[in-house]
């Protein structure tokens, strides 16, 4: 019994309920950013490398919005963000190894 009570107490502590409004706001921002990328690519055809960079930057902002708000990462324990940083660091490491490989062939 003691354990059960403790368990529910902890759960209530950690549980954060996001409001409908917050989700709607995140959605509106994501839609806006999507339309922005489409317009950048449609009208910025001359700035080839710049558009790739812009598209990736906007995509990353969108991904962060999904992770932080839709996936509740903002309200999770720190360990989740730490894990994510480790995984991203691993990916960046792979990225550099691949670039190094191709540049030194």
């Amino acid at each position: 019994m003691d354990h059960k009570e403790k368990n529910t107490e902890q759960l209530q502590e950690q549980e954060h309920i996001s409001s409908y409004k917050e989700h709607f706001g995140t959605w509106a921002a994501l839609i806006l950013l999507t339309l922005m990328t489409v317009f950048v690519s449609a009208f910025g055809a001359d700035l080839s490398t710049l558009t790739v960079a812009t598209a990736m930057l906007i995509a990353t902002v969108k991904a962060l919005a999904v992770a932080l708000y839709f996936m509740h990462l903002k309200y999770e324990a720190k360990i989740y963000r730490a894990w994510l940083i480790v995984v991203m660091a691993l990916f960046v490491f792979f990225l550099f190894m691949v670039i190094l490989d191709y540049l030194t062939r």
Partner: protein
Amino acid sequence: MEHAFVLPNSGHNWDAKSSKMGMWLFLFTELLLFGGLFLVYMVYRALNPDAFLIASFELNVYMGTVNTLVLLTSSMTIAMAITALQKGNVKLAITLSWLTILAAIAFLVIKYFEWGSKFEHGLFPGMDHYDSLPLGERLYFYLYFFMTGLHALHVIVGGIFIGVVIYFMRTGHVNKDKISLLENSGLYWHLVDLIWIYLFPLFYLIH
């Protein structure tokens, strides 16, 4: 002899925290799976920039944009379903989950028409037109079919997962105090959305 020792979880093998952690660990492996494919894409695009540009004109930007909007909206509905269940509104949670599945089906139908028109043009690897293309364009279409195909597979799995959770919400196994399964299906669905956020500009918006 008396046995005073009792397992802390006697009577119920449910642990919301570890359930969520396990899901996140799985999602990280998924990120690295697609991450590897994005590296392949990066190398071949860097080696064949013009071919990738020409090949990308075959894709329909309007359909791609609509599909992006559909996925983003479905991400919102499943996130709201979790809010609804946390507040104890099971009916609304089920309705919002159904809306998410509907969006998944809409996404797949649009994808079906997109792929269908590529098949008509003989652009699937192994078809005559595909074989006659220069190497760079072949690589583009190969990656296009492989990556959007693997993504579509995740859409199907995510839709089925949410369907199973709807069944458990109806039977009461997933409820206000036990939201783990709905939460995890939501996390999986958001991952599907996350990957599409990168696939869309990389394949449809090359300029």
